[in-house]
């Protein structure tokens, strides 16, 4: 009979409609602004209305989420900022839309390059958030950020980020990407240890040679 399929379909809509109220009842006033409820609402077990009340409610950002790169610096004594960047230029070379400009510093006396950038610019209008710079940086000096609320009123003066605006402490990085941070620290520690072992070995060998 004509219309049966229609009614059967509408039963599905009705089920969804009733489901939203049932879910509201289940949480009884705690459905919104409640991290526990939010986690369920965004999981495979979600029922009812799916909406997140942004910006009052916020979804947890997964660690791998990437948005606009930033530069890492180690916090030295007395608030000194020690850049991890050595201005090797790999990020500028790998960047697909070519939005990174790096000015390498030269030693004023010898004129030879110093592993430290004078300036580092990213045109965030051009950046496509691909994350290749962070992926291929050999010094873990440039990483992708989690801060996506970057709207400004003037794109002409504010959308070219310079080194000062891009720099963030390593502790910030450790807070947004703890797993990556730990893995990279472990890797660099292992590398250091291997280097130390090699140098002490060669030192011992030299001493043995001298004795002989």
């Amino acid at each position, binding site marked *: 009979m004509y219309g049966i399929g229609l009614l059967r*379909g509408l039963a599905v809509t009705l089920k969804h409609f009733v489901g939203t109220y049932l879910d509201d009842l289940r949480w009884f006033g705690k459905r919104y602004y409640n991290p526990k409820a939010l986690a369920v609402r965004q999981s495979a077990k979600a029922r009812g209305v799916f909406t997140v009340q942004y910006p009052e409610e916020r979804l947890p950002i997964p660690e791998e989420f990437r948005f606009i790169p930033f530069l890492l610096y180690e916090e030295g004594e007395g608030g000194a900022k020690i850049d991890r960047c050595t201005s090797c230029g790999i990020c500028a070379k790998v960047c*697909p839309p*070519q939005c*990174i400009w*790096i000015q390498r510093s030269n030693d004023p006396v010898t004129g030879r390059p110093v592993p430290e950038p004078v300036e580092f610019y990213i045109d965030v209008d051009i950046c496509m958030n691909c994350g290749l710079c962070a992926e291929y940086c050999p010094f873990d000096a440039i990483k992708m950020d989690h801060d996506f609320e970057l709207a400004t009123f003037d794109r002409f003066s504010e959308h*070219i980020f310079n080194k000062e605006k891009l720099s963030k402490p390593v502790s910030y990085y450790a807070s947004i990407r703890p797993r990556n941070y730990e893995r990279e620290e472990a890797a660099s520690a292992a590398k250091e240890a291997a280097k130390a072992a090699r140098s002490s070995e060669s030192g011992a060998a030299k001493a043995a040679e001298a004795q002989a």
Partner: protein
Amino acid sequence: MTETAAPAVVDTLEERFPGVVRRDVRAGFSGYVVDAGHLRELALHLRDDLGYSYLTSLTGVDYLPDSKMEVVYHACSMTGGAPLVFKTQVPRDSAVVPSLVSVFPGADFQEREAWDLLGIRFAGHPNLRRILMWEGFEGHPLRKDYREPFFEEEAKPYKNRWPEGHVYRIEDKTPFFKNVQYPPDFTPEGWAPAGDAGLYAGLGELPASPEEMGQTLRTDQMVVNLGPQHPSTHGVFRMVITLEGETIVDLQPVMGYLHRNHEKIGERNTFLMNMPYTDRLDYICSMHNNFGYAVAVEKLMGIRPPERAEYIRVMMAELTRIVSHLWSIGFLLNDLGAYFTPALYAINERELILDVFEATAGSRMMCNYFRFGGVARDLPPGALERVKELVLERLPRSIDEMDRYLTGNDIVRARCVGVGVLPPDKAVAFSAAGPVLRASGVPYDLRRADPYSIYDRLDFDVVTRPNGDVYDRYLVRVEELRQSLRILQQVVRDIPEGEIQTGKAQYQVRVPAGEAYGRVENPKGELGFYLVSNGKPNPWRYHIRAPSFINLTAMAEMCRGHKVADVVAILGSIDIVLGETDR
């Protein structure tokens, strides 16, 4: 290094056309080179005698150093196997090649694209006009000596970024009005656009008089423009329709409103840089675009990803297929007038899958996840469990619910059954791909016909339907959702531990000289990447066989004789994404 055809074909072709058809002997190249004069003859022979009835891809390559233009054809047999490649070379300055539209109607838009972007004339093409650029555009942008207005250097990386990087905004260097090259005798004030006269002229003859049509009532044919701004076109897409009353007499798709010459950008980029750009093609299924490009470059490099990476790739690809098919079903219903309720039910499930992409790849839509010889990073903790939850519990239920909700619906059936019929022979002739082809009863799915990755080991069915109408295309998508779940259930069960990258991840890959055509079964159809490398860090040619674009070739065929309101449903059933159509 594209696969060569079976030796039997090799012998017959060279024997049958002695001195005219030769093997392509350039290092890294394969297939045949045919004299332009005998191209049609060869194509007919391939189609009628050897069963290569499906022209997959047609494109041109500008060999500027040799002063030659080459047109490359990939033809396939519907029984499966690797495509047969044949090429023809003509002088660059007077590039004229016989048109193959009469042999393979699916060559229509592709020849127009090659004319538009490369300036290769196709003699005998019924309607050789620009297709992606606008009428009145000067030059052919994919020619190697063409320089775009924001031209900086021939190839990336640009030298002024490091170590002297003095930042500038490109708009400041070439402000508006100073970045445009005009022809010598051109005055912008006096210029009037050529208009759409050519477009309308291509819409078939208007009948001379009503008596001729055997009608007593005097009627006029009317031309209606649907789009570019129209909610049913899923983007900026325009159709020019000639109507007799409410019945469609002819239709012409007009596209290119979202054109950014992706291929030119791709040829300036290094190989790796193209990976995030492919995300922007069909932005609903970026993982699949990554997949196609990775397969093509890996063919050139001669590497294979490790086992775990293959499983992760297939997992992501099939999740993407679910995303794309859900999206397309939801929006088909939108087009039919069920405003956003079914679409939002579909998007609800899609969100859950995008969460997996975000946790794994770092972005919900612009995934940029595949690398040559692997994937960017391993699955984070919890991702596999989430996928298991989805494919074993939630998605089967919600797909069944979708089925119950829509399939039997009387209005959906009334609007879809028997509308936009594409018979199987026409579907093949027009190079339709994906669900459009399979809904016409042609069991052609690259995952089976020319298996890549680990699809030859997975158990799933190629879904076909016999009628070739809008309803069957919908049903094919619903059934493919179930088949994708079947694949995913095997993948999450069998996924091994291990490496995710062959060799060391490099930002400057060495790609040997040669050509490769890598293709994958995208949710929309066959997504192919034709690459030519000359051993440098940048591809010499980077062409995309875009299923959304080529499926539109059959649009007019599907619409003729239907009512104007059906156009929206038919377009919705083809499922185009303008990012890929316009490139």
